[in-house]
């Protein structure tokens, strides 16, 4: 129990630190008024000054930084992400988030699912044939895949499967039915999944090879359990730890990668939203998205911890 309390405290500290960093960076480095008001922000004409004062009042930009931070934090904790900084009305940030978040989430979940679905059988096959030709070739393959930048892979997959073979659509239409959009998301998800799968396969293969040398594996064989069943029922589960740890940590990196992949395949998700928001210095939107991403990261890692205890009865606390 104590452990989970500690874990929760650390997570909250982390979220606070990330939010302060983002909030501070945005406010110290940027000047949103220019983007809201255009050239008028730098004007000294009376009506411009009035506009500036009004905008400052509206967005609480006239208050000191710490106060604004606390205000924003208070709102956010109660589920209010504030309004977008814009010259045309103040649409709530949550509208944008509700529209964009599911697309990014779908992409990421699909990517991680694909990566695991590729990595686990791949690792099982190579671990069972460790250091034989098939395994050697696979090692080279995964090395190449890991070195492949995601945007380059995106271009290659787009060229092969989208243009030459024409198997997958190259457009994403938000108005299409759900299943069609899943289909449209496949290629981008594969782009994220392939290098991730290679990373997972390397880890899982190494751990499987170590596990396969354990005495309990020999014991299982001596019971007459088939090789296949030994691999699946006895060796896999105790070999999953590094894989799951990195699966969690990697989520953060994949979120970064998905921003680029979203933009290449033109999926209007959180990726394009945050890039646009940063460019127009729309602080509340940037903050909201950063907090969502970081929270997702924290949640995934807590889930990883829970999965540990499910896999290995010895770590049940």
């Amino acid at each position, binding site marked *: 129990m104590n452990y989970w309390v500690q874990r929760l405290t650390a997570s909250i500290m982390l979220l606070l630190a990330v939010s302060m960093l983002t909030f501070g960076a945005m406010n110290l480095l940027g000047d949103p008024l220019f983007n809201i008001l255009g050239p008028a922000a730098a004007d000294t004409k009376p009506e411009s000054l009035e506009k500036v004062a009004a905008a400052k009042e509206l967005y609480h930009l006239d208050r000191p930084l710490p106060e604004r931070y606390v205000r924003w934090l208070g709102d956010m904790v109660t589920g209010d992400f504030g309004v977008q900084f814009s010259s045309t009305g103040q649409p709530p940030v949550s509208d944008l988030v509700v529209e964009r978040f599911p697309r990014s989430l779908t992409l990421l979940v699909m990517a991680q699912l694909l990566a695991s679905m590729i990595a686990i059988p791949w690792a099982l096959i190579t671990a069972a044939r460790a250091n034989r030709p098939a395994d050697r070739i696979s090692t080279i393959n995964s090395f190449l895949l890991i070195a492949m930048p995601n945007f380059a892979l995106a271009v290659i997959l787009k060229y092969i499967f989208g243009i030459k073979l024409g198997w997958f659509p190259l457009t994403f239409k938000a108005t299409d039915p759900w299943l069609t959009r899943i289909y449209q998301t496949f290629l981008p998800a594969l782009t994220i999944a392939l290098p991730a799968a290679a990373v997972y396969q390397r880890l899982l293969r190494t751990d499987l090879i170590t596990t396969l040398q354990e005495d*309990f594996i*020999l014991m299982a064989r001596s019971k*007459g*359990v088939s090789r296949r069943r030994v691999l699946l029922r006895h060796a896999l*589960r*105790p070999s999953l730890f590094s894989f799951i740890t990195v699966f969690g940590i990697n989520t953060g990196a994949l979120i970064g990668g998905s921003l680029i992949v979203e933009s290449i395949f033109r999926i209007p998700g959180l990726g394009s939203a945050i890039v646009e928001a940063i460019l127009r210095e729309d602080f509340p939107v940037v903050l909201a998205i950063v907090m969502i991403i970081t929270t997702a990261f924290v949640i995934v890692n807590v889930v990883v911890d829970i999965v540990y205890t499910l896999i290995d009865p010895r770590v049940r606390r």
Partner: protein
Amino acid sequence: MSGLQTDGRVEQGRLLTVENLSTTFATERGPVRAVDQVSLSLDRGQALGIVGESGSGKTVLSRSIMGLLPSTARREGSIRFGDHELLGSGAVDMSKLWGREMSMVFQNPMVSLNPVMRIGEQIAEPLRIHLGMSRRDARATTVRLLRDVRIPEPERRVDQYPHELSGGMRQRVMIAITLACGPTLLFADEPTTALDVTVQAQILDLIAEQREERNMSVVLVTHDLGVVAGHTDVIAVMYGGRLVEVAPTAVLFADMRMPYTEALLQSIPRLDQPSHTRLTAIPGRPPDLLDPPRGCAFAPRCAFARDRCREEAPTLTPADNPEHRFACWYPVGSAEYLETRERIASGLTIGGRS
């Protein structure tokens, strides 16, 4: 138990015949012959003790018979189990025999049970695979097996994980697993070495009791002559991958001929000594199997070795009693042996000890 039995099972008489079995490992530094030309046989219901120091090849021998070797190992010779030949062309699929006809109790119960599987599942696995039992039947049988191996509260224990059990309990679980399908041949590879002294006797008695009850053959592998003394019918002593003395247990203890066997006997631990001191009791080290000595492998460590021992390897030959075979030029009791002992007793030393 009739429902558990396979066609063509040996009910009495010869169960296992091993002839000229050699096992060679391909290593980076060259081939290592860990088992060299071993022949032995075992009747149904009999208990065989394979005794030797660590590195003598006794574990490799038992695993060679069972076929549980890494892919770098190559076996030659013949192993007949009942009507089946286990080696070479036409050999039967071992995984059909494993767990069903022959099974093995491993040395260290701490690492030989799957840590992330309930013990009930681990016992039920061979029942479900080999006997096609339903989940419910397998569970009932599992509970009965746990009771057979004297585990208290078996209904509760089935759902526990190995780490919730003591070492002795885990070894009992392992025995339950190996007994599950009622095998005719049980290998026990140092089954008590990793356990507390107080538990050791209980585990050996449990194996003996189950052997009696099931008319099962047992191969007990150990470095400890004391362990096999009360629990086997026949003893085979191994050194450097070879059998150096084979005899019925009573005969061996009454009249051991190989100086190595004698040295092993003198190295039996006593309760007043810490258990790990016993392995070093014979001075010197077992031979390097990459580069085995030309003559008798034990000669470099043998106080009674003479020139002939270092030149020419003795073969396993019967003594006056045809059931008693040993490989020694100057066995215990021979004139040369007595002469050397005399000399040692009078304080003179001779070459040979390294």
